[in-house]
């Protein structure tokens, strides 16, 4: 589907599909931490996340025959984990109201990060960015997370969010429109950058 993985990763995947189970441990070790982090954004229940990671790999073994060499292993694992966690959250009644496919929570955990990034006297900037971030929907937060923490391409993000390429661009675009209303400080370069990253546009805004 996509071709972002390096050659070794592809070889490992092919070996696994051919029935070589020894390489599954490599796949597991390579992805377990990023899967765990992704899972922890949906829920604070670490044990639930761990159970779901286990399930993801068990499913991987069971459904091996239906997978193909061109599958993107990282995307497969991320999406499979997300599906399982959302289902668990629904089933176990851990969530007071039923959450639909589009309305599950997502924690970007940007606040602690912002503290480290901005100077103390940048209070104004901090407030603006914080406000802008708060106005994002959970799906927009997830898109940002997948882009900057997991390093996924736009096409891959739309795959995980179950949207076609245009819709996912549109989703991100709406986020920017919203942000524009809140932060309106054109001379602040940082905000402009923020907009255009979310737009995914190449042209310069300066």
């Amino acid at each position, binding site marked *: 589907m996509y071709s*972002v993985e*390096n050659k070794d990763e592809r070889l490992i995947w092919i070996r696994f599909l*051919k*029935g*070589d*189970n*020894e390489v*599954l*441990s*490599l796949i*597991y*070790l*390579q992805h*377990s*931490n*990023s899967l*765990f*982090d992704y899972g*922890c954004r949906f829920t604070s229940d670490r044990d639930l996340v*761990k159970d779901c*990671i*286990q399930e993801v*790999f*068990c499913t991987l*073994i*069971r459904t091996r025959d239906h997978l193909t060499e061109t599958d993107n292993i990282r995307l497969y694992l991320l999406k499979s984990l997300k599906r399982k966690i959302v289902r668990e959250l629904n089933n176990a009644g851990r969530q007071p109201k039923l959450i639909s496919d589009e309305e599950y929570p997502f924690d*970007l*955990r*940007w606040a*602690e*990060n*912002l503290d480290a*990034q*901005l100077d103390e006297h940048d209070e104004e900037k901090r407030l603006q*960015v914080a406000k802008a971030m708060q106005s994002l929907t959970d799906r927009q937060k997830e898109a*940002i*997370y997948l*882009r*900057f*923490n*997991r*390093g996924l*391409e736009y096409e891959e993000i739309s795959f995980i969010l179950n949207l076609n390429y245009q819709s996912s661009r549109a989703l991100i675009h709406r986020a920017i429109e919203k942000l524009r209303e809140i932060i309106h400080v054109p001379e602040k*370069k*940082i905000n*402009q*950058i*923020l907009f*255009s*990253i979310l737009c*995914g*546009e*190449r042209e*310069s*805004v*300066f």
Partner: protein
Amino acid sequence: MEKYRDYTAVDFLNDESFLRWLTNPTQTEDDFWNEFLKSYPYKKAEIREATHVFNIFHSHEEKMGMNETYEIWSRIQKEAKTSKRWKLLKFVKYAAILVLVFFSGSVTYYMYQRTEKQYQFQLAGTPQISKDEAMIVLSDGSQVSLEKQMSQISYSKNGRQLIVNNDTINQKSGTEKEMINKVIIPYGKKSMIVLSDGTRVWLNAGSQLIYPSVFTNKTRQVMLVGEAFFDVTKNPGRPFIVRTTDVSVHVLGTRFDISAYPEDKLVQTVLEKGKVNLNYAGNGILNRDYVVEMVPNQMVILNKSTGEAKSQMVDVSKYVSWKEGMLEFEKVDLIRALKQVERFYNVKIYLADPLIGSYKLSGKLDLKDEPEKVLNVIKLTVPIDWKKKSNGDFILIKK
């Protein structure tokens, strides 16, 4: 590289290669972007800006502890096994209806054998050998550092208590799951471990051994990265299996040496006493596993990239003398001998001329001496000389 000349911070953040460099860089990306910064220094400001924005978005990551990582892994293995058996039962049910009873019986047996073998994965994939600290990692993730050059570790029968260099440590008892322990020995150090079944393991420099503190399964399994000499306590009911990334050795009770360093092209197994089965995956079209039944004094060398195995009879003492602080060679490539010296002393030895590496070396090296003295001994047998750089690295030159 040209195309990035007029990039702004935004453009950089939209570039896949740049983003990969910030999130998950490979050597290629690292080289490329460092080179780019050198060639276009005026882009530094834009790149700094892009990195700053990236850092605001890139939030702190939640990580699993090592014991959690292992715990989930062992659960995956267990689940994989049971689900397969369940499917098998269903299969057998239908088979029994359709086929003669004794016939389905043999199918079951065959399938069962396969399952057993298929789902014994190993988790020794990523060696993280720290540069200088030897340690033992207990099942709860706590680390005990091993300060001595040659550490001794021994387990009580129930695995709960272990003695590390004369200090006694009690491990919290995990009643159900196996307590996985791990010993990490960096270059320049060694260790001797007595496992709960009495098996003794000499772990060579730059190696790791992963094992349960007590063996609860039908087989006694350990995982090895690097080199170790095993003196396995005999227990016919419970075979002992040493797994490395490329080979696994199945034994009942015996003495043998495995050298499987990730950076080496070859995996070497030498049998001193008893009988072992060496298993390795074939590379051919059939992709089937190979089994070599080894006899005492036999050495099997597997080439990891070609999947070819070579066998020969050897003087075992030469291959296991490292545990007594000696290295013995008989017509060994100098490059291979130097690798062992490097690991033992935790030094770097470079060859000014790569051809030097193919000189054949024979003789004994006493590793109690300084590395300089060892190199002087090597100098007597092959036409080389050596220099020491200011950073402690050695360079060998042709004489």
